[in-house]
């Protein structure tokens, strides 16, 4: 299997070389350059923490009103271990299909050689009136940071706010996206997405009924089948996302973008295991609301010097579910609600040519509440403070040293600890785009 992909990669790389040679002729079309644009992104790090290498697990298990078991949050990630780590190697290919469509493909190869298709979409390029449709698998336009690929992050890891509500990889899925760009001097974009919604890691996650039924059967020593959980069929799109972005024209030296997002997952599911031996499965809908503000002051000096940016996002998730299966049949129909906020703020500054410093603070579990019937339990606040120094050798390669100070509330109480990342990130191939 891997040989097949390697062969594909080599083929694509050689075709981009041919495309480069073609460019010596007058094309009058920048979109034709390197078509398809192919790149490989190499990402690796030296990692250390002072909690025996459990630093990432602790963050993922931070106290949350959205705890569930058997869902996609138990996906195998490339967990960071102390010492050397080869992170996901990303392959991307993009270009114009014809005058009607452009397309994008990105796939990640884990250090173990597993291949995962992250994005594969086509986008219309010929609709009138500022309309565009994207179809396939793509990163949702929810929030600001969600659409960014890891290689363009200002930090080595996902921020705690996204980690706690949207998951390590953010919100992505199979579906359709419609955007409309208003014909105004200021930028005003509305977006509407319909997604299958079957792969969310946190808010809006679904469970594997077979697996949970087996687990319950084992725990209770009875025979519980998947159908006994009374979960609705997940046929059809379950996730709708609405986005609004606004940016006034502040000239060529700075930019501001404000945005609002709202998402509804109409069939979220969760499996709960209570201390007293109660097991139950809930189902209902989940709403996520987000607000974002991004300000960038473009560099006045050379090689990025003097540029700075400030980004802040807040998300609030709210889930109303009912027990569709309960180990105590009298509790069937028990209303179960979860609600929680998360936020991060990050700042970057180009303090010298090719050198950037980044500061980030993030919190999860803001106002978190988990209620079963009349009983309410509060989720405790977890915090993360990060500082990173990045050296951009060129546009195609960077080295980063990052320090995190975490204060995490988890199942085993409060843990304060440090993480250190020394990361390299290189891109081989096409010229990366400087999207906002």
């Amino acid at each position, binding site marked *: 299997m891997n040989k097949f992909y390697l062969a594909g990669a080599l083929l694509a790389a050689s075709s981009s070389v041919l495309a480069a*040679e073609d460019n010596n002729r007058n094309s*009058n079309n920048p*979109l034709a350059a390197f078509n398809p644009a192919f790149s490989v992104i190499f990402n690796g790090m030296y990692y250390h923490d002072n909690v025996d290498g459990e630093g990432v697990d602790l963050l993922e298990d931070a106290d949350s009103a959205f705890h569930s078991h058997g869902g996609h949050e138990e996906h195998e990630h490339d967990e960071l271990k102390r010492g050397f780590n080869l992170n996901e190697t990303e392959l991307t290919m993009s270009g114009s299909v014809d005058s009607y469509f*452009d397309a994008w493909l990105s796939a990640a190869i884990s250090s173990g050689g597993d291949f995962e298709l992250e994005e594969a979409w086509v986008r219309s390029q010929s609709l009138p009136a500022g309309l565009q449709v994207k179809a396939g698998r793509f990163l949702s336009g929810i929030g600001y940071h969600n659409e960014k690929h890891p290689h363009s992050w200002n930090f080595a890891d996902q921020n705690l706010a996204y980690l706690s509500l949207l998951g390590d990889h953010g919100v992505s899925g199979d579906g359709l996206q419609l955007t409309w760009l208003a014909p105004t001097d200021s930028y005003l974009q509305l977006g509407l997405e319909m997604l299958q919604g079957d792969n969310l890691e946190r808010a809006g996650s679904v469970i594997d009924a077979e697996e949970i039924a087996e687990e319950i059967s084992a725990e209770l020593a009875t025979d519980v089948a998947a159908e006994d959980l009374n979960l609705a069929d997940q046929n059809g799109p379950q996730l709708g996302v609405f986005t609004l972005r606004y940016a006034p024209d502040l000239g060529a030296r700075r930019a501001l973008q404000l945005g609002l997002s709202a998402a509804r997952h109409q069939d979220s599911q969760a499996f709960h295991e209570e201390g007293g031996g109660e097991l139950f499965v809930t189902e209902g809908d989940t709403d996520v609301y987000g607000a974002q503000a991004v300000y960038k002051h473009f560099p006045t000096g050379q090689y990025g010097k003097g540029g700075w940016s400030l980004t802040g996002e807040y998300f609030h998730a709210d889930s109303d579910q009912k027990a569709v299966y309960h180990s105590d049949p009298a509790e069937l129909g028990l209303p179960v609600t979860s609600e929680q906020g998360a936020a991060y703020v990050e700042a970057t500054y180009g303090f010298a040519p090719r050198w950037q410093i980044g500061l980030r603070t993030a919190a999860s579990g803001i106002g978190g509440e988990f209620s079963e019937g009349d009983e309410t339990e509060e989720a405790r606040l977890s915090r993360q403070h990060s500082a990173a120094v990045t050296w951009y050798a060129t546009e195609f390669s960077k080295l980063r040293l990052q320090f995190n100070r975490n204060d995490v509330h988890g199942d085993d109480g409060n843990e304060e600890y440090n993480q250190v990342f020394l990361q390299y990130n290189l891109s081989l191939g096409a010229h990366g785009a*400087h999207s906002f």
Partner: protein
Amino acid sequence: MTLQTSSRLIPRKGARRVWVHRVLIAALCAASFGARADLRILACEPEWGQLATEIGGDLVTVKTASAPGQDAHHIQARPSLLAQVRRADLVLCNGAGLEAGWLPVLLNRGGNPAVRQAPGLFLAAEQVDRLEVPTTLDRADGDVHAMGNPHVHLDPRRMVSLSQQLAERFATLDPDNATQYQQQQQAWQTAFETGIPRWEQQAASLKGSNVITYHRSWVYLLDWLGMQRVAELEPKPGLPPTPGHLAELVKSVEQQQASLILYRPINGDEAANWLAARTSACAVLLPLSPGEEGTETLASLYDTLIERLVAAQQRCQGSKA
């Protein structure tokens, strides 16, 4: 239709309604006037915005993506540019890879099929012969442009050719005003072309001189004026000067008898001044685009460039001879 509907509603719904409808009508009128004849142009760099303004006059409305003095390689595809692309009749850029990092994003996300290719897209450098077209491409050589050196606007002769092509493009996009574009271009060319022999005469003393440049920004200017670049302050295009590379340059300035070191404000003074202090060459700060200090029009850009080069040469011969 709208007028009739609104006048029927006014007496019933009171003053607030009147105000709302007046604004609506005004907006509709403004929209219909705006769409009449004006060509809406988004220019990537100030030199192209300036050329479009000088040729198009009142018939065009020009917005420029980058400010004078900014590095056109490193502009971000900021949202307000997407809004400009959305409504543009023409996107006028340098091309030849200069905007490779951001123009594709603008064209792909601007939601405007008309400007994704000609005639709605005009890439200036790709309409004229280019210098320094590489025979091999390797990132190890730095940020080399596959299509050759993109900074063609520093040769006024190429600008004359481009002004004709641009006026033709205006006429294609706005046929009602074709004659006027042609007349405006001819008037512009007549005035502009009288400058060329004058500039060449003023720059006569520069001919044959060897120079060092910070980046490969000046090759078309040097080619026009008969000057040669013998080295660059950047060790490779797009990489900042290193102490080791600067130390080597000290030797080559003397060997190659380089007299001037050309740089832009965005390059910073340090490297150029460091080298000037250790060699017989003199540093000279130059504008790259109209709108930078001392320049407004394209003609005044060449005036300023030649004035500063000649002045630096004389100053240098006086002080370092």
